[in-house]
């Protein structure tokens, strides 16, 4: 054919993930918007009797999550060269960091629940809903990593290479969303 393109467009799976991320971004945007909306209506934010969230642990943790995207990116690069062992290794490193991250976050979540409840008032409702939304996304990402561990050892196919790059893209999004969520939560401290 005379109309062959000079270079190839990205695979459909990558585009599909971009659309999913757009929808998920809108979902996070709605949650964050709700947080802001409710804070505008409140006389005190956080309400009296609830301490403002501490900044250190959430900030450090979200930077850790951002750092975990580096091994994901390296895994994608290894995938392009068919480096099965390298790709699995990088995903495994990312997986460990992400799992530790989620463990810490759940620990903090349970800690917070001991101080106040989502049933206390609207601040508690959106606080726990927003953090919970992000933790669910991290958990879903961990399941995607596990799927890679199942499939990658048998070698790369175009399908698996697309899957790896799409999952990496998902993690970039989850890391950015983590930063946005942390910034929103910490906005109550100033």
């Amino acid at each position, binding site marked *: 054919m005379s109309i062959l393109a000079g270079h190839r467009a990205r695979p459909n799976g990558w*585009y*599909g993930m971009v659309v999913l991320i757009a929808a998920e971004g809108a979902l996070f*945007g709605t949650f964050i918007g709700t947080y802001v*909306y409710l804070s505008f*209506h409140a006389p005190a934010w956080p309400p009296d009797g609830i301490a403002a969230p501490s900044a250190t642990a959430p900030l450090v943790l979200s930077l850790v999550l951002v750092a975990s995207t580096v091994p994901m990116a390296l895994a994608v690069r290894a995938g392009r060269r068919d480096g099965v062992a390298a790709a699995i290794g990088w995903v495994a490193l990312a997986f460990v960091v992400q799992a530790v991250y989620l463990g810490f976050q759940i620990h903090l979540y349970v800690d917070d629940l001991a101080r106040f409840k*989502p049933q206390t008032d609207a601040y*508690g*409702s959106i606080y726990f809903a927003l953090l919970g939304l992000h933790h669910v996304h991290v958990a879903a990402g961990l399941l995607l990593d596990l799927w890679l561990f199942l*499939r990658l050892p048998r070698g790369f*196919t175009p399908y698996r290479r697309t899957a790896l790059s799409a999952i990496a893209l998902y993690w970039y999004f989850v890391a950015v969303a983590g930063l946005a969520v942390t910034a929103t939560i910490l906005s109550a401290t100033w």
Partner: protein
Amino acid sequence: MTAIQPPAPAAQERIERLDRIWAERPGFTGWLTTTDHKRIGLMYVAASLVFFALGGAEALIMRTQLAGPGRHVVGPSTYDQLLTMHGITMIFLFVIPLSIGGFGNYLVPLMIGSRDMAFPRMNALSFWLFLGSGILLYASLLLHEAPNAGWFNYVPLASRRFDPGPNIDFYTLALILNGVSSTAAAANFLVTIAKLRAPGMSLNRIPLFCFAILATSFSLVFALPALTADLVFLELDRKLGFHFFDAARGGDPLLWQDLFWIFGHPEVYIIVLPAFGIATSIIPTFTRRKMAAFPLVALAELLVAFIGFGVWVHHMFATGLPQTTLIFFAAASLIIVIPSGIQIFAWCMTLVDGTPEFKTPLLFIVGFIIFFVFGGLSGITLAAVPFDQQVTDTYYVVAHFHYVIWGAAVFPVLGGLYYWFPKVTGRMYHERLGQATFWLIFAGTNITFFPMHISGMLGMPRRVWTYPARMGWGPENLASTIGAFILASGLVLLAANLVVSRFRGAPASADPFGGGTLEWSTSSPPPAYNFAVIPVVTSAYPCWDADDRAADARRLAAGQLVLEHGHETTTTTPVDGHLDDVLAMPAESIWPVTLAAVCTVGLALVISSHYVTALVSVAVAAAVLAAWHAVEPRSAA
């Protein structure tokens, strides 16, 4: 225009090879496991028409109840359930699934010259999730626990305190499921239209119907999350005692309305845009002329979807928001007239400038233009804040949105049912009966909905289950009821025409109307692989380019772009439509329907507060997903 010539022997051999490669399992299990966009589209059509019949029956019961003052056909609690289910059914289970799921699925790959959607298995999943959400909603009606707070389900009426039964839980969870289904469908359309177009189909050659589906899909992707978040908040409030909408604990009932209409107004355009797309398909065919102002119409479709995000507060003019806010949103609501006007003038100019042949599909489009102008004008009156505050929550609003949603969004869909019937079944519908049916439905629509303007201005509030005789609303309501039955009889004739023609109609050629888009270049009904050779396109109306189609036939004989070695289709670059790659497509799979069943059962468990068992179904769903993705599409090379 030209019938398909009997292919040369070499071509015949290739066609037989394609038949073998693309054959799916026969019989009932074939429908459960299918990933063929046409069969999925037909299942969408069938299911949404069943829901349409149910929603119509609900409307007829309500109209019978309201025919005169003080009647008691149904009690108030049943009436509340009927009116809520009518709204939810018509919007979430009928119009959107029919126009996007049904028409979109069946037509988009055919119009862009592809062999399937970008994600065929996810496409099947979309359908089965949609069906699951419909089954959940109608299960609630069978249990007499159907949603009963109106289709927009305002809090605090919908909160646990005032609606303690499972009614609203059915609403929230079924609509979350429905939203996931629509998001998956929208993602599928976006990637399909971006990547799977025929070689040569650059952006400016995409058929306007596909542009409409593209705009709709953009809207769905960004609008549905607001609804999903809203539903999640409500369910957390109801089931776990959160306080999102509880003013006593720092929440805000208006938050529900804001989030609902941030979704709900784009939703109006999600409903009506595919109808615009159908109009832009039917008008050129029956006027023998390309659409006037083609690029403007494409841009207007995208612009309507975009501005649709900035007008949601016009549903909330009576809620006591600040005056500045109201003025901003009133202005935004008026601006949307501009892209709508562009399209109306383009349709009219095409009709005036062409040589229109008023067959049934075009009649429905003309009816659509009339209703859209009329409903648009009553919409302008509602965008004026002082007037709106007078008629909010009266039958005037009911009249307005039925003119827009029934008259403007459904009429093209009905026209489309006739227009593509020969393509789908290979048989012609009965033309004379079709035209008579149009006039019956057109008259029924006006007799039903026009008097509602008057009863509304006389002060009749919407959603009342009955009214006393001294209010003087009797004559208008009787007229509406009579109209509703005329309308219903017209729809019965439509169904009868299509069902009988399916078996007894005259055989249809590949292109009985001389259509311009690619679906008419393949046989009626199309083969499983759509096109024996991937078409190469040089204009927006490729079926009118006889030389190109002759070149396709030569390529079939020569074996170029036939892709006869595997379950494959081509991809092209998103902007220019240059041939990019040959893609192995996944074949039929049992996992989408399984996953949808697991999700539906899981949500039913949440509704009945069996949370632990519901968690088990999450684990099962994860296992199903793993099994699904263990089957990889293989390329033949």
